[in-house]
């Protein structure tokens, strides 16, 4: 789960990471009130979960209340790469002497935490990574050992941060590491991490991605729940606990397991069709889950046929069959269903479905046959 910048900064604050004084605003009047409180000049920043907002006109400097009013008015409602700005973060503008970059994430190939630190932070950091990779000081951290101040100090030296920034940066990096580990982040990134002319180091931005698997031990994450940006089909699926991604085609897809679901998309494309969605009903899916999945797909007006592709492992095919029968009794499906059922209890499942088969509920023996049939029906 990605956090907005303001949420990321609030999350950083829990771990003692310094940020600029500021506040959230949903209206122009609120923006002016926050600016008055933070002290001019201020920066008015669009809160969207997408990069490149500065270049899109979503970050503006304001010297006084009138300029704040003007910029807030322009930025609220602005469309940045399909994300409409509904909220602003208004903070006191910092004078910047230097911009650094700092982040922690998991280095999957090496199975260790990876810290990245650079004296050349700012919007061009990805460019720096390509043209001058030595300017990014990498630090692999074994989770057993963690990051201590001494290691952080030598890392800061290696990254060549300015002398007056080093002590503060080392302390901040240790705190950012704690935020990353104890805060269960997939990513904790500061770009830029700044040094002010007065010699203070603090985070000017915050990019935090939380690991949703750890939500059970973070009740405080509830306030971050946000589905304002997602498509209505995805919202409905989420309410039913389904892993759904809306796409633009006409073949609705239901599969168990992310790999099989992706593979189902692949074979539908190879059969000349286009998938309307990605939907993984997961392991252990039962009749209720299957029925909910069919309801979600049925609500998508672009769907012309539905391809149910199940290979039972934990998921028992007889349960899936019951779900299909139940869903067909509960809702009137707008599209024909083509099924391919294999694996655990497949024989029992097929037997249950046998008497329900028709031109609206079709069984095919293989995944490729089912894909071809579903695509043909979608095009009919």
């Amino acid at each position, binding site marked *: 789960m990605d956090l907005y910048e303001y949420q990321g900064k609030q999350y950083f604050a829990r771990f003692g990471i310094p940020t600029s004084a500021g506040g959230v605003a949903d209206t122009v009047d609120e923006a002016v009130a926050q600016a008055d409180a933070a002290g001019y000049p201020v920066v008015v920043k669009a809160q969207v979960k997408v990069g490149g907002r500065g270049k899109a006109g979503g970050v503006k400097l304001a010297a006084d209340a009138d300029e704040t009013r003007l910029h807030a008015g322009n930025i609220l409602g602005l469309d940045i790469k399909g994300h409409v700005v509904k909220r602003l973060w208004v903070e006191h503008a910092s004078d910047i002497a230097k911009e650094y970059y700092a982040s922690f994430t998991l280095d999957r190939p090496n199975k260790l935490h990876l810290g990245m630190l650079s004296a050349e932070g700012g919007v061009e950091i990805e460019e720096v990574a390509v043209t001058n990779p030595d300017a990014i000081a990498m630090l692999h951290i074994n989770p057993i050992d963690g990051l201590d101040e001494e290691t952080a100090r030598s890392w800061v030296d290696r990254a060549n941060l300015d002398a007056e920034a080093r002590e503060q940066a080392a302390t901040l990096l240790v705190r950012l590491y704690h935020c990353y580990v104890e805060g269960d982040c997939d*990513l904790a990134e500061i770009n830029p991490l700044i040094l002010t002319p007065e010699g203070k180091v603090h985070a000017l931005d915050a990019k935090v991605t939380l690991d949703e698997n750890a939500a059970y031990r973070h009740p405080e994450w509830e306030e971050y729940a946000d589905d304002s940006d997602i498509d209505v089909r995805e919202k409905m699926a989420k309410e039913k606990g389904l892993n759904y991604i809306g796409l633009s085609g006409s073949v609705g897809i239901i599969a168990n397991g992310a790999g099989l679901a992706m593979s189902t998309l*692949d074979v539908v494309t190879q059969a000349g069709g286009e998938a309307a969605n990605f939907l993984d009903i997961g392991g252990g899916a039962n009749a209720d889950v299957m029925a909910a999945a069919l309801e979600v797909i049925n609500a998508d007006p672009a769907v012309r046929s539905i391809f149910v592709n199940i290979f039972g*492992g934990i998921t028992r095919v007889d349960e899936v069959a019951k779900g299909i029968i139940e869903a067909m009794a509960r809702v009137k499906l707008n599209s024909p269903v083509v099924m391919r059922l294999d694996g655990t209890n497949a024989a029992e499942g097929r037997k249950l479905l046998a008497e329900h088969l028709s031109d609206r509920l079709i069984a095919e023996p293989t995944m490729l046959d089912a894909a071809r049939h579903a695509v043909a029906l979608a095009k009919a």
Partner: protein
Amino acid sequence: MSIFVDETTKVVIQGISPTSQGLYHGLRNKAYGTKVVGGTNPKRGGEVIEGIAVYASVAEAVKETGATASFISVPPRGAADAIIEAAEAGIAFIVCITEGIPAQDEALAYNRLVREFPGTRLLGPNCPGIISPGKCNIGITSGDIALAGGPVGIVSRSGTLTYQALHELSQQGIGQTTCVGIGGDPVPGTNFIDCLAAFEADPETRAVMMIGEIGGSEEERAAEYIANSMTKPVAAYVAGVTAPAGRKMGHAGAIISGSQGTAQAKMEALTAAGVFVTQNPTECGEKMVAIVRGLP
């Protein structure tokens, strides 16, 4: 032969109770012929649940039964501790199918195994398990879709596609030595290379079927290994050619991953390594069947 598990493997089910997933799958594994020698549950030591003797700890189970492998399907919050408990008890092969373990817990448990228990291999988490047909099945794979006798080794990152791979071969009468589902979590205990190396060393495995998926760089690394160290033919399929683009994780993801991770990049790397790259699991199975039938 087979890799990692065989007819001598003795399995203990961690976290067993009358309503647990572990019992359901453990009984199925036992019915398949796997030597399921016991279960553990700190509150039920001394009980017998559906014919399976329960011990209070893995250490006790190992002492009483000589268990060499364990099967973990406990909920995410207890899974990392269960892995360490098994390693501390001297279990050599741990299968963890639990889905949804926090990445921080996974990274810590994995690194503790590497540093403190180098003799222990973890398979998973979030994987379907392992089956050496006719000998041993640990996990959630339906035994009747596998066929004993080799000569194909299967390694897969995706659960359901692992079954699909088995099914494609068994339907054609081609057996498997071992089928390993390594799982798709951020920190897998066993990766493609571990399995490819074991298959390369196993005299009965004569060809390998590999199922990858988008994300990460495991397939690219496997390609490098195959190019440098494998003599046996490999056929592969990478799921997700048409999958929607994943979300980008800040700048950090772009800096460390570059162009790696797309299905296209993986397929190109595998093709360059001499792997027979196919477009879907059925085609992959057909290619494998043709390779096996053409073996001398």
